[in-house]
């Protein structure tokens, strides 16, 4: 069953076509890795997919979309802004309540950010900020994840741990990755983008790192 399907999707920037037209269908339970050279159109595709997606979709843009002046707690809490009443959320904005605080703390512990709950997001390092955005996606617990290079600032083992956490929480996902090894390890379908078009669309099991080289 398709959870997201787009037909003849295209995008232009300054009069020049940067993406498509392309069509794409995503079945429930599919974990897609989006690969390709930088500038190939992966971010544009993810952003357009997010426009088409239903509510309950978590979106993690490359620039993360964190609010630097707010604490890590608030940034993660934002993942569930659609689930609570306005009053409850405003209370949490002013004085974080115990229950959400505990839940957020649990997620941060798993990502190695246990001591950062109260720190403003703007004062963290690049890798820490990336994990805060991951924590927000994990806290959101939606049905579909669209993530753009979610682990680009993390080193090997940590990147794997974070990818494992994301793919475990979201059985259906489209994740743009520039690391070919990670892409093969954490997906069951790989879509290669070249000059704004789909150049490759295969099950991961049939591919090796060498097959993906021509895309770069």
């Amino acid at each position, binding site marked *: 069953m398709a959870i997201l399907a787009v037909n003849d999707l295209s995008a232009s920037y300054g009069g020049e076509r940067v993406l498509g037209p392309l069509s794409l269908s995503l079945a429930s339970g599919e974990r897609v890795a989006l690969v390709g050279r930088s500038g190939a159109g992966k971010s544009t595709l993810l952003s357009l997919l*997010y426009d088409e*997606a*239903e*509510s*309950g*979709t*978590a*979106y*993690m*843009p490359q*620039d*993360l*979309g*964190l*609010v*630097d*002046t*707010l604490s890590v707690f*608030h940034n993660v809490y*934002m*993942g*569930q*802004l*659609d*689930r609570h009443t*306005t009053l409850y*959320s*405003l209370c949490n*904005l002013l004085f974080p309540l115990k229950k959400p605080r505990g839940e957020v703390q649990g997620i941060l512990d798993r990502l190695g950010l246990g001591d950062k709950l109260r720190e403003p997001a703007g004062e963290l390092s690049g890798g820490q900020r990336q994990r805060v*955005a991951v924590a*927000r996606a994990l806290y*959101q617990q*939606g049905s579909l994840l669209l993530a753009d290079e979610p682990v680009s600032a993390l080193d090997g083992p940590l990147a794997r741990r974070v990818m494992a956490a994301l793919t475990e929480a979201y059985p259906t996902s489209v994740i743009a990755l520039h690391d070919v090894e990670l892409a093969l390890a954490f997906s069951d379908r790989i879509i290669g983008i070249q000059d704004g078009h789909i150049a490759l669309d295969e099950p991961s099991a049939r591919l090796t790192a060498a097959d993906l080289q021509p895309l770069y």
Partner: protein
Amino acid sequence: MLRSRTGLTTLAFIGVALACLPFSDLAITTLNPWQELQRLLYGLVTPDLTATNELFTAFTRTLAYAFTGVALGAVIGFLLTTLFSSRLVRAFCAFIRSIHEIFWALIFLQCFGIHPLSGVLAIAIPFAGIFAKVYSEIIDEADPLPARAAPKNTRRLLRYFFTQVPEAWPHLRTYTAYRLECGLRSSAILGFIGLPTLGFHLEAAFSQGYYSQVGALLLVFYVLIATMRLWLRPRLVPVYLLAAPFFLGEGLPIIWGNVTRFVTQDIVPRPLREGEGWEGLQPWLTEILANQALPGIWNTLLLTQMALVATGVLALLAFPLISTHFTGPVRRTSGHVLLVIARSTPEYMLAYLLLQLWGPSMLPAVVALALHNGGIIGHLVGRMSDEVPLRKGAPIGFNRYAWELVPRVYPPFLAFLFYRWEIIMRETAILGILGITTLGFYVEGAIQEIRFDRAMVLILITALLNIGVDALSRRIRAWLRLRTRPTCEA
């Protein structure tokens, strides 16, 4: 010069100002103006700080009115930003901010009498209009990405409070602190129309010729504003806010009957009140227009245009005083002191002082407006000139000023000047209360004759004039392609 838009605009405005001169009364009428000025300067260097009790009350009141009024205005203005996409709300805000604090105070004094509520509302209402506008502009500039990353079904209000407002928060805070300085000036001059703030004591000391007391009041005021950065700490703000209402003083009790009468009878145009209906209204309005509004508008425009050009000239002359491109730390420090004095003295207070010294004419008003506004713009342009990188071996002295700096800072300078055009006009109207025949003169006259209906019509006309000039200034700025963030409006 005629080829460039900025040059053309500059020449046009100078031409208009020169054309205003023959129609304006710019005489010095006092017999010994320089002797008075000497006595005032002597008072400034021999300040009498012995009346500590009175000084203390004057300042706590001034601070309390400013804090309460600005805080109330900030809260209302902030809440209004959530509705600012509505055209009606935008027009409402434009309207309430086009009426000067002093006019609001004159209205509220008739309602509530000499009561803290009059002063606090007089500051809070126009400030709310300004806050709503500037806050919205600041919040609109926030990064839209966090709002997009929030879950799709998030309510608009939550998106607003969780992403856009926190993003803009540091800028909102800076701007609010800046407006507090404006609020302090507004609070101080409310004393001139009877509220118990600084202006009240200043006027009393002046009229009795106690120049040393005048000196003390002015000096403490300058120190207060110049040291704001030291005492206005983010952590102390809640303390100030909680304490402020307790230092407003008691005032006279509010007579609610007066309030009702003012709203339901006093401000209703006389022909309507006396049952003459719309037919009586027309001659009544024509009479006000012909005998009061038109002469008032004419003089307001004359004074505004002359003051605008004088402000520009002064600002261009003053900015090298603080620019780091000209040598001498000592000269620069004294330049800073001069500009702080010029910009922290409210133009109303300056005009009052100069009127006492030179007698009633447009001259003291032009000089007061030019000193205050020229001080502000000179300060901003001076700081901007520091960011101009000069090549090695750039000319020095006057050549550096005329060839390297002025051409580069001229566009932002014009932006600041046009931005202050409406503010200068608001002030010009107010200076009428001191006896110069601008619109404020006729408003004050109508109030003294207890014809509040007339006063209201004249205040409305003043507001419309301000809105018109604001719109014109926006057009000119767009035509000149000028963009500069506003700083202080009052």
